[in-house]
């Protein structure tokens, strides 16, 4: 497959189409407008459907309906819009309806800024809606990763019958990079995926109470609700082995930078500079931020390491909470932070790393 030069948002949209996504509903918000714009043109070409919803809550409900009737479906938004999606996402999680959604994150809280930020970490990984459900959350750092993660997300969503979130940001969404797009599923494959969901999809069934499709985002019976929650908890537990991280030059590292998404890529470039300067620096960059790759932090040689540097585009530090859990007191953790839509600078990371190496 030839490499093409594409914007992150458009690559994610095309990857979704190639994965078999045939329904998209969304509402305009910067910096993710290229996703609905692309889908409005692209989906009709492959027999799919695009609806510009009247709001984010309506859009995610349309996706809930389309996905509950068996079609691979997606929505996208940016931070404040993602908050509005939380209603429908929680319904999908409760009713076990597979769907994929993308957050092209921007500054917050509130309307925040339209520039890139990582202020939605806790929302993405801990509470994307009411009711204590969990989702797989992927954090791409390149356009290639973004496309690959969106493509894989549809398989995970279908396998688990659960929502999957792509936590990208305004840099990944709006920058252009070379990307090798994943293969296009054939119409037969897309139809077979839909057909495989027919028994539970709300498309009409023979009159048979026991075997009707019944999409229930809640239970009247408290005992049944507890059972559903227990089954969901077991599902979430089963994901632990799927946690993934990029572990870079970790073996002999005396300083370990840790970061995710676009910030993780900036941190990696800082690691390369440090190595050239003779500093034994390494990197842990989670690719899944839920489930969190705690195990990666066990592979740090804590006898050597002088400190861990948490690098994130969020103030207060949010990713730090998972890093602290993973490090579990085995090393001192410093932070290098920016926020408000300001993009992390490599110089700031290098200065923070120097402080650690100097023992400050």
């Amino acid at each position: 497959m030839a490499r093409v030069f594409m914007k992150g948002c458009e690559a994610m949209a095309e990857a979704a189409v190639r994965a078999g996504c045939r329904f998209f509903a969304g509402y305009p918000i910067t910096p993710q407008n290229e996703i609905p714009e692309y889908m409005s043109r692209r989906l009709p070409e492959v027999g799919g459907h695009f609806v510009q919803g009247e709001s984010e809550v309506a859009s995610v409900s349309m996706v809930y309906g389309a996905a509950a009737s068996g079609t691979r479906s997606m929505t996208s938004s940016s931070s404040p819009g993602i908050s509005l999606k939380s209603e429908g996402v929680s319904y999908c999680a409760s009713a076990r309806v597979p769907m994929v959604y993308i957050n092209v994150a921007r500054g917050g809280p509130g309307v925040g800024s339209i520039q890139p930020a990582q202020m939605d970490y806790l929302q993405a990984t801990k509470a994307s809606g009411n009711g204590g459900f969990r989702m797989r959350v992927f954090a791409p750092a390149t356009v290639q990763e973004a496309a690959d993660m969106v493509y894989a997300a549809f398989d995970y969503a279908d396998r688990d019958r659960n929502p999957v979130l792509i936590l990208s940001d305004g840099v990944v969404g709006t920058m252009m990079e070379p990307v090798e797009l994943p293969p296009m599923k054939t119409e037969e494959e897309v139809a077979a995926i839909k057909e495989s969901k027919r028994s539970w999809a709300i498309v009409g069934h023979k009159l048979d109470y026991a075997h009707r499709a019944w999409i229930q985002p809640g239970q009247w019976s408290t005992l049944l609700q507890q059972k559903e929650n227990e089954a969901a908890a077991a599902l979430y537990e089963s994901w632990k082995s799927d946690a993934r991280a990029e572990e870079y030059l970790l073996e002999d590292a005396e300083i370990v930078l840790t970061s995710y998404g676009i910030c993780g890529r900036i941190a990696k470039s800082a690691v390369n500079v440090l190595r050239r300067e003779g500093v034994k620096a390494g990197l842990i960059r989670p690719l899944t931020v839920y489930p969190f790759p705690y195990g990666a932090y066990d592979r740090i040689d804590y006898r050597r390491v002088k400190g861990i540097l948490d690098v994130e585009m969020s103030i207060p530090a949010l990713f730090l909470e998972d890093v602290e859990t993973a490090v579990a007191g085995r090393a001192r953790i410093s932070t290098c932070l920016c926020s408000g839509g300001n993009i992390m600078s490599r110089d700031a990371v290098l200065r923070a790393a120097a402080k650690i190496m100097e023992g400050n």
Partner: protein
Amino acid sequence: MAEKLVYTRTKTIQEDKVSGFCPGCMHGTVMKLIGEVIDELGIIEKTACVLGIGCCGLQMDYMAYDNITSPHGRACAVATGIKRTNPDTFVFTYQGDGDLASIGLAETMSAANRGENISVIFINNGIYGMTGGQMAPTTLLGMKATTAPKGRDPKEHGYPMHMCEILDKLTAPVYLERTSCNTPQNLMHTKSAIKKAFVNQLEGRGFSMVEIVTTCPTNWGMDALGALDYLEKNMLAEFPLGLIRDRTKEA
């Protein structure tokens, strides 16, 4: 003389389920009418019902056909997602006044404005039922509600909303009618209105809504017969029955 079968219970309602609707409530009546229409049209195998939140959602456990519970107010959006991706599936929403006219106003208006090929059954009893009698957008002036203890005051709460007339300002909707189930005659007419709304969708004509003015004896604080009198004297005065729009032939 040979016996002649004149009535059978619709099979769309599961026989062994016990209704949770209050005595005098018309949800069960409308649910039966919908089931009979589905039977008569022979569309059970392709029917998907989108339920709102509130008492309108109670029937999920009784109906023997496909259904999905939507987030509060979002039924028309959920129906849009199902219908767009499954044009051969028959999709109708079943919503109360709080669901359709308050929290779901945007979804209702927008689906109607897009001319989605769906059918909407709107139950208007002027009050929030399941949550215990709070004021609805359709609560009558002077009518007491738990959140309007002195009665609906237009200076503070505005006036009852007439959804059929509001949607009639849009270009796309095909069929809008307000009916009731307070008399056998009105009940039979409601059934034919439901059938018309359903057939419109089956023939690809677009958005149809039947607003059915009903009672809520429990939250109106009346017995079933008193609620019927109140409906006739007060609800129907505010919400006159009749055809609001019929562009079926043009569609």
